[in-house]
């Protein structure tokens, strides 16, 4: 009787081990753009809006997740106009830059050296798989003797990921 129970137990155990629950997944090359930090303009002087921390602003941070190396380039444009603002009677002078803030692979530190900049656009070849954070600085200067009118100012940072 004991032998029979032991055999039954073994049979049950083997049945349990025979059940499997597969978890399947696919890793495909892809680029994910993540907005980690939304930027804020500080207003250090009446004629300047700036995302620099020293000016009371916050620099927007955009994260790129790339599964495979050499499949994409990142193209980031700093603002060159307000998408919404109070009525402005004079020209706004825009400056901005994009740089690598953090990396998950030390080889990505070369991105800053190898970046291409033209007008308000900066391009980075994403030659290493992993995650990289880009910080964007933006400054808007109004006429030297003018003050930005009171109101809400919004500008847009364009973050693109282009397959190579």
């Amino acid at each position, binding site marked *: 009787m004991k032998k029979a129970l032991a055999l039954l137990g073994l049979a049950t155990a083997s049945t349990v081990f025979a059940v499997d629950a597969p978890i399947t997944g696919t890793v*495909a*090359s*892809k*680029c*994910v*753009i*993540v*907005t*980690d*930090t*939304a*930027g*804020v*303009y500080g207003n250090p002087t009446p004629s300047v809006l700036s*995302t620099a921390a020293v000016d009371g*602003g*916050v620099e*927007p941070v*955009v*994260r790129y*997740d790339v599964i*495979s190396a050499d*499949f*994409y380039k990142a193209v980031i444009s700093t*603002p060159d106009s307000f*998408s*919404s603002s109070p009525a402005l009677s004079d020209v706004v002078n825009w400056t901005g830059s994009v740089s690598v803030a953090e990396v998950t692979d030390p080889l990505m530190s070369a991105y800053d050296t190898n970046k291409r900049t033209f007008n308000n656009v900066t391009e980075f070849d994403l030659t290493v798989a992993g995650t990289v954070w880009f910080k*964007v600085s*933006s400054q808007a200067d109004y006429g030297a003797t003018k003050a930005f009118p009171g109101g*809400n*100012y*919004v*500008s*847009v*940072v*364009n*973050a*693109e*990921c*282009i*397959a*190579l």
Partner: protein
Amino acid sequence: MPAYGHQFMPTYPKLQPSYVEGVLRARMEIFNSREDIEYYEFSVHDENWGKLPFATTERILYVPYLKRTYVDIFIKEEDKDRAVYICSMSKILAGVHQSTVVSSKICSKLK
């Protein structure tokens, strides 16, 4: 602050015959994990970033937060050698009061 992402796949889509003669189809997948964005616009470009005509069910598509959607992009067979990029771009609603807004655009390449 939570992170918001935009995915567009595959990286290298292939044009395949569609149910309409003379029209090819690329099936794309978009995943919206940007809580601040609900609409994405699609476009097709040649190698010089000139826009090419294409058809899809909705050029500006509603993609709810954390939803994955498949989009069929239809391109005329005569344009198949000119079409290089298929892009999706986030659409920001008017009335956003954030200081700087990030617009995301991902382009796949036809090979």
